[in-house]
């Protein structure tokens, strides 16, 4: 008989405790992010696809077309080309194409670049109807960004 009442009161108490927990959470602020309207700021070490970095002053790419990144890439995602204009000392980048469909975000290209010309972007909202949408012209993106 004692066991019966112990179970009854213990059970009732646990139910009341449970109700208390839920009502407390109900009045607390919500924690969800309203995704399409607002999106998360990615952390500093987040690895998105690579992106060319521009010079602070001119906005032009820091790339000297040494081709280290192209060689370092295990999947062969990177294709770049450059030319030496008349009278210039350094090569100038003419095209930099990343095939993101093959990229595994290993970061070998960023590691290998001695000129700090490429970095990881914070882009994670990637969706496209066809695979051609993932072949990025990074030079064009850089020009668009620097405006």
């Amino acid at each position: 008989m004692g066991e019966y009442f112990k179970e009854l009161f213990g059970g009732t108490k646990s139910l009341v405790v449970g109700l208390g927990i839920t009502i407390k959470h109900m009045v607390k602020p919500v924690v969800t992010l309203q995704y399409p309207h607002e999106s998360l700021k990615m952390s500093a070490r987040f690895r998105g696809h690579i992106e060319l970095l521009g010079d602070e002053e001119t906005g032009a790419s820091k790339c000297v077309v040494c081709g280290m990144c192209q060689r370092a890439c295990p999947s062969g995602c990177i294709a770049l080309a450059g030319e030496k204009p008349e009278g210039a000392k350094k090569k100038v980048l003419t095209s930099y194409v990343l095939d993101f469909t093959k990229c595994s975000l290993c970061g070998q290209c960023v590691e290998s670049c001695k000129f700090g010309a490429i970095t990881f972007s914070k882009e994670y909202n990637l969706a496209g109807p066809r695979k051609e949408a993932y072949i990025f012209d990074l030079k064009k993106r850089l020009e668009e960004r620097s405006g």
Partner: protein
Amino acid sequence: MMFIPEPLRLLAFVVGIIAFIALNAAYLVWLERKVAGHIQRRIGPKEVGPFGLLQPLADGLKLMSKQLLVPKGVDPYLFKVAPLLVLVPAVMSFVTIPFSENLVARNIDIGLLVIFAFASVNVMGLLLGGWGSANKYAVISAARCVSQNVAYEIPMLITVITMIMVTHTMNLNEIVMQQDGSLLNWYIFRLSASPLMPVAFLIFFTCSLAETNRAPFDLGEAESELIAGYHTEYSGMGFGVFFMGEYANIIIGCSLATILFLGGWQCPLGLYPGWWWFLAKVYLLIFCVMWIRWTYPRTTLWGLLNLSWKYLIPISLVNLLLTGAMIKLWPLLKTFLMGAS
């Protein structure tokens, strides 16, 4: 009061009650999703209209525009009749529920009995829906619903008998009248009638949860085991009508708890009694129903029947005995105390 001819009055009530049920079914779903959202620290519906207020409209349109599929092998009549058997008794029960002193479709002397008579038809609808679907999950669900309803009808009716012993009437209007005045006159606090009155309220409330197949007693709709339960095979408005019936039954359960224990349309302080108090209490109870649903996990069938047979029925029987004793003893005790002072 203005004189309204009887047929017009009835028509007004029929339209009013059906509109009330439909509106409530729609907006209680919205409220339920909001409550569930905030308990889980989410927002809930927010995209359709301000605060997601047009969401029920969108859902309703979607349900109505869907095809009513009648699968091969179902019982053609039972399959179509079952949703109505759930909704119609619920609508009928509203006839006797007094929203305020004058706002009641039919003030009959056996109002309480009428509601319980119709409430039992609801189970029949679930059983026929499950059986007519020719689907093993639906049949299992229907069988569970029936066993659950049988188990919980007993403590509920014992509690109601206790209440009738105290009130001496089955007229819902009169029961509310008896709780006139302050908070202490409500039957939930009428300890002179039975010291276990608050417990009786809890038993009644628990049973009404089980009777309406609400969580944590929603064994009939255990998604992980039974897909959707008895309405697995229903599409479009067939499902919609089941859903409306379920919410209508919740409103009836909460209305009855309000009328029997919480003073119906009476104000806690005795001021301005009216339908607003009735609705405020009903919605408070409905909020509790939702709160309970989003707090507790579903019970097992074993736990469900255990709760009824081991706790609710014995305690409600003790309450019945105590009430009987108090009816005889309280007048004696009162005169004794009066004489002493």
